[in-house]
């Protein structure tokens, strides 16, 4: 690398950044520089130290050692406000917006000195027009789609005229069409000289968007490269430091219908949720049914109605021919229907409880962890250890709180917990959300293996690549309605996009 040359005209230079947390060196002597007007990818597995690194740049975490410089001057942000003042902005993976407020109000809340609402609204309109991000400042955020919400966050950043924009997994909630719009915006920004630090695990995206990539592994920079010159597989292997295992499968002949929903309707339990309308689907033993769709189109509700957390108001749900709509989650588990919701912290796992206790959370019935009401802790601990081992969950031990695990590791634990219980039907929502490539591949492989063994698997996901990789049949949720499932093979991205947009499956398949 031509280090001297790059540093002299770099926008930002990091030198020897080091940050240790008790028991783990999150960043060890990380150095790289960002040129003005480039899209620079930050790649790495879960726990590789990407988050810690960008938190240091954004002033959320103070480095133990090392320096940063911005435009040749020393840069030591003490908090995000200071970082913003210096021209560094960040769009987080999880949005921090208030559903009940309007776009302009939300943006004003995030500003250090907000102008009057009217002035702000006109500035929002200007920016959104200039960058091709259509957004009405008066709309209520609760009514916006995930893509539109992300626009709110991006515009909030753009209003500060940042020199460096940090984006954490920005495309994970977008439709293919929305991704294109976002990329247009980002290219426009870089052409004006703004640099973008882009964190993503979607390697194809990085290859099409980024000019440089810095790859982190266990807190250390292992390589810097031009992602356009590498294949996605090469990038993934650099990240993992090992040969990457690509999910493989031998499609089994689909068996009998395992789970079927017919004309299920359910009003959403939450105010900003989506009602399910007349949803029908069938999933057979040995097949993987992929359900696509942009977040907020009824995914959570669909999972809840299958897990037993919510009851369908109309229609029927049958498991192996038996009506189960009135059964509790526990009774459904006993009959072989297992589920894994999207939200890990607080829904599929209790963050402050240990992994052992979290293994008990859904494993009590099928793993026989309860004997006449009394808990069999040693058996539960064995079950937890089995999950940790079989799914390569990185944790010091099963006594650790679920919340202390990284997102990917906790997700591996949650999926592993259900898969190891040998379900007849497994329904998962966003199985690889915010999970790195290696972990995602192993989760997908385990779902395929499960289907191969004869279980019916439903994968609800916004990641189309994922669905294309593992589904036998595909359908999409749009405003609580489900398109008619069609075979995945031969389906083009355009057809999928149309199904996600609510066009009838027949028209698409025809």
């Amino acid at each position, binding site marked *: 690398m031509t280090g001297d040359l790059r540093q002299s005209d770099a926008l930002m230079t990091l030198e020897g950044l080091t940050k240790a947390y008790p028991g783990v060196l999150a960043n060890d002597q990380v150095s790289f520089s960002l040129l003005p007007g480039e899209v620079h990818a930050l790649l790495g597995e879960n726990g590789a130290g990407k988050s810690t690194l960008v938190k240091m740049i954004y002033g959320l975490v103070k480095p133990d050692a090392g320096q940063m410089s911005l435009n040749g001057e020393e840069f030591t942000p*003490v*908090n995000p*406000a*200071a970082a913003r003042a210096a021209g560094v902005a960040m769009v987080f993976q999880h949005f921090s917006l208030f559903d009940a407020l309007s776009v302009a109000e939300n943006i004003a809340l995030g500003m*250090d000195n907000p102008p009057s609402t009217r002035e702000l609204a006109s500035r929002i309109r200007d920016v959104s027009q200039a960058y091709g991000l259509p957004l009405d400042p008066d709309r209520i955020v609760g009514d916006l789609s995930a893509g539109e919400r992300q626009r709110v966050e991006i515009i909030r950043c753009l209003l500060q005229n940042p020199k460096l924009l940090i984006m954490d997994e920005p495309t994970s909630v977008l439709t293919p069409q929305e991704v294109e719009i976002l990329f247009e915006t980002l290219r426009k920004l870089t052409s004006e000289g703004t640099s973008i630090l882009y964190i993503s695990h979607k390697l194809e995206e990085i290859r099409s968007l980024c000019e440089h990539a810095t790859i982190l592994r266990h807190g250390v920079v292992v390589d810097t490269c031009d992602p356009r010159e590498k294949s996605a597989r090469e990038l993934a292997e650099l990240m993992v430091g090992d040969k990457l295992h690509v999910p493989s499968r031998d499609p089994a002949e689909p068996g009998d219908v395992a789970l079927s929903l017919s004309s299920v309707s359910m009003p959403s339990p939450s105010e900003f949720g989506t009602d399910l309308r007349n949803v029908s689907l069938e999933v057979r033993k040995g097949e993987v049914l992929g359900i696509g769709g942009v977040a907020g189109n009824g995914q959570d509700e669909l999972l809840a109605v299958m*897990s*037993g*957390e919510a009851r369908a108001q109309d229609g029927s749900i049958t498991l192996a021919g038996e009506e189960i709509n009135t059964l*509790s*989650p*526990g*009774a459904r*588990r006993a009959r072989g229907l297992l*589920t894994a*919701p999207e*939200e890990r912290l*607080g*829904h*599929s*796992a*209790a*963050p*402050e*409880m240990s992994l052992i*206790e979290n293994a*008990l*959370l*859904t494993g*009590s019935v099928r793993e026989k962890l*309860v004997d006449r*009401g*009394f*808990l069999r*802790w040693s058996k539960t601990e064995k079950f937890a250890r089995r999950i940790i081992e079989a799914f390569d969950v990185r944790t010091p031990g099963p006594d*650790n*709180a679920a*919340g*202390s695990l990284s997102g990917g590791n906790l997700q591996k634990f949650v999926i592993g917990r259900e898969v190891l219980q040998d379900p007849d039907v497994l329904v998962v929502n966003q199985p690889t959300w915010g999970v790195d490539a290696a972990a995602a591949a192993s989760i997908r492989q385990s779902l395929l293996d499960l289907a191969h063994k004869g279980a019916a698997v439903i994968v609800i996901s916004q990641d189309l690549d994922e669905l294309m990789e593992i589904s036998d049949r595909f359908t999409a949720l749009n405003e609580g309605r489900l398109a008619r499932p069609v075979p995945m093979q031969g389906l083009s991205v355009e057809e999928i996009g149309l199904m996600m947009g609510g066009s009838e499956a027949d028209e698409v398949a025809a």
Partner: protein
Amino acid sequence: MIRLEKRPQPSKVWGALTPVLAVVATMIAGGILFWMLGKDPLEAIRTIFWDPLFHETFGPYSRPQLLVKAGPLILIAIGLSLGFRAGIWNIGAEGQYIMGAICGAAVGLAFYPSESILIFPAMVLAGAIGGWAWAMIPGVLKVKFGTNEILVSLMLVYVAENILASVSQGLLKNPDGMGFPGSRNFRDFPAAYNTDLIEGTGMHWGVAAAFIAVILAYILLTRHMLGFQVRLTGEAPRAAKFAGVNPTRLILFCLGTSGALAGLAGLFEVSGPSGQVSIDFNAGYGFTAIIVAFLGRLHPIGILLAGLLMALTYIGGELAQLMLGLPGAAIQMFQGMLMFFLLAMDMLSHYRVRWKAPVAAQEGAK
């Protein structure tokens, strides 16, 4: 100057240490309070914490009182802690305590002057049922209509107090009492009297029940599915629903159990140390038990220790009023400080305290 950093998981060491620190801080702040009132702080602290147990004159009298006072506090607090763990806030233990006492006493008085050995067990049962039924009112209202159990259970305390006033002057009034309010005294009714199990120790059936409750609650919370569901509901309600916990059953179980235990405490008190149903036999144990439950970190063993400590401050407080002329309000403030410091110190188990340069603090304030 000081920055708080959330710990990845709550520290067990600090969790165990904070109650001790809170007691020490209370002693210091209380000492300053007593000093400002013109008393010798060390003597005041000694009178409250040491003399009740070890003073040669007062010790023999106050030592049994420790168990007499701690028994009902622990029994009620154990019940409350189950609900508090699950986020079900029964604030009306005082009312359940009164209703348990009235029901239990009424059963006993109905058979006066029988000498059957079945009378006392029947009273115990009636006491538990009385408290349980009183707690079921907020429980059923919450389950059926979504009312707030905090308000309903608290309001029912005042209803119970009025019922108490009414029965002690009416239904349960001692027919041989020359018109004075209050029931017959259980001391004159041996088959129904809750006497000391070991003479002179204050160890009556209620204290035994409290110890049993501590053990059972400990087993429930650490070994039983129901206890796991209670904890899970408190820690992550959505995960509890996902796991298949039935919220209705859990609400009724938690409120019912805390009501039954409070009712038992009331019965043991009225048939023992208090001796009769009177307008003011209740000493606010139902409210103080809330403090005991939190002081004990909602943990059975912690509650056992906290109940003993709280009883000590009661007895010591009375002694300090008597010996040093400290005003009663100062003692109550002292007990309030204990709760305050405990909650404040609680932060230490969830956060790590870091010192930071003052400049950074100013930036952070923006």
